């Protein structure tokens, strides 16, 4: 059987599509081998590195992973902790002992610390096979978020919103004067002046839309340069 790759690097493939034929290729996640064929299991972008073929998903709900820093919202206050929404099919539990480095006495009013509706930055510390998730607030950068706005981006696009070594998010922060915290689960917290926040949201939406293309940093720089020249913040509005 001839060893052939049927796709190029950065091609988009659909489930069931054969991407390569031959036993020498190694399928990464999102691809599987059936006899001599390597077949795509998801809608995504192909990444070819020698004999290793990877599939980069471009959509899908966030799947909780241990050690991910996520932005979560408190949805319930319980006897021993809080239940938080981490933007996945599964909610997570924050227990009293993991909430803060202070000592929380038994029977304390937990809403003093976090109440329903609060947004927090926390770390996923455990995911069981039944998808019970535990989070912790103990660690650098983990805190309650106050003020600002929260937007949702697809969790698979988060690496692009962050950029190589944070280059994209830094570019956006510099051009908007905003504080930005990005959760691996796709929730992004933005805090600044309203005009700055709006620009940051628009820039992030643009990154999301163009996540699978190259030259993204240039596109976003271009976006900010144009912003500086015109006052109009939104296109297509009707008066």
């Amino acid at each position, binding site marked *: 059987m001839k060893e052939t790759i049927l796709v190029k690097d950065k091609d988009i493939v*659909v*489930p*069931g599509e*054969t991407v390569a034929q031959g036993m020498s290729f190694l399928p990464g996640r999102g691809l599987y081998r059936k006899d001599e064929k390597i077949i795509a299991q*998801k*809608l995504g972008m192909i990444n070819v590195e020698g004999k290793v073929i990877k599939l980069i998903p471009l959509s899908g709900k966030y799947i909780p992973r241990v050690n991910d820093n996520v932005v979560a919202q408190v949805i319930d206050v319980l006897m021993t902790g809080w239940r938080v929404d981490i933007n996945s099919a599964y909610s997570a539990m924050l227990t009293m002992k993991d909430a803060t480095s202070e000592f929380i006495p038994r029977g304390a009013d937990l809403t003093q610390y976090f109440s329903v509706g609060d947004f927090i930055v926390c770390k996923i510390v455990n995911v069981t096979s039944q998808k019970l998730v535990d989070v912790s607030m103990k660690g650098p950068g983990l805190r309650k978020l106050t003020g600002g706005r929260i937007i949702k981006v697809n969790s698979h696009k988060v690496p692009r919103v962050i950029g190589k070594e944070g280059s994209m998010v830094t570019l956006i922060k510099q051009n908007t004067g905003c504080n930005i915290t990005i959760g691996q689960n796709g929730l992004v917290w933005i805090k600044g002046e309203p005009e700055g926040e709006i620009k940051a949201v628009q820039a992030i939406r643009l990154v999301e839309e163009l996540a699978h293309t190259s030259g993204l940093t240039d596109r976003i720089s271009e976006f900010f340069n144009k912003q500086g020249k015109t006052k109009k913040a939104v296109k297509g509005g009707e008066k």
Partner: protein
Amino acid sequence: MAYTKRFDSRKFDELRPISAKVGVIPNADGSAMFKIGKTTAYAAVYGPRDLHPKFLQNPSTGILRISYNMMPFSGHGERVRPGASRRSREIAMVTQNALLPVLDLTPYPNSVVDIFIELPQTDAGTRCAGISAAAMALADAGLEMKDLVSAVAVGRVGGTLLADLNYEEEAYKEGSTDIPVAILPNSGKVTLLQMDGFIKQEELKKVLELAKKKCEEIYEVQKKALKEKFKVQK
């Protein structure tokens, strides 16, 4: 009387014009529109997500839940009162069986993947259009699938075997056999098969081969729609 010329002058193995688009419902996790002739189906996928009530949850796998509905103004003739009917519930069930074989929901215990199929306009072939739309929506939602699913209604009208019956052909007084079929395009396997009417065994085999061929055409449209979503507009 033999059916020798189709009402809309198509060839016997010719599909009506098809169009498809992905990502048409921004709120959904995945969505698609599939149109064949005048039959138009929208599908939206929400999930995997939390499943209530709790007793429906399955600790070893996520479940697939389908809802199929034709809008009140979508049919030929009178307005159809909104709400589930026995027909729509049966279609939901066979749609579920047509799509489940390509999905692996074991990574999502206790959760649900909801698919809502709605048709604003119908002209036969509705459950097939729904399945073709739903398959695209599932892929758009980033779910793991062994293959897409493509569907078409084939059949026998006035003694002639043909593909993609329209409403007039389905209602043909001198005998119409309607056979909705769903196929996994890369393996050729059948995941939906129903039939109303009469047919001989040899004819059935022939018409299923026809369905397979036509599903390949539909698959090309589905693939293109999924990839189109990522074409950059300058």
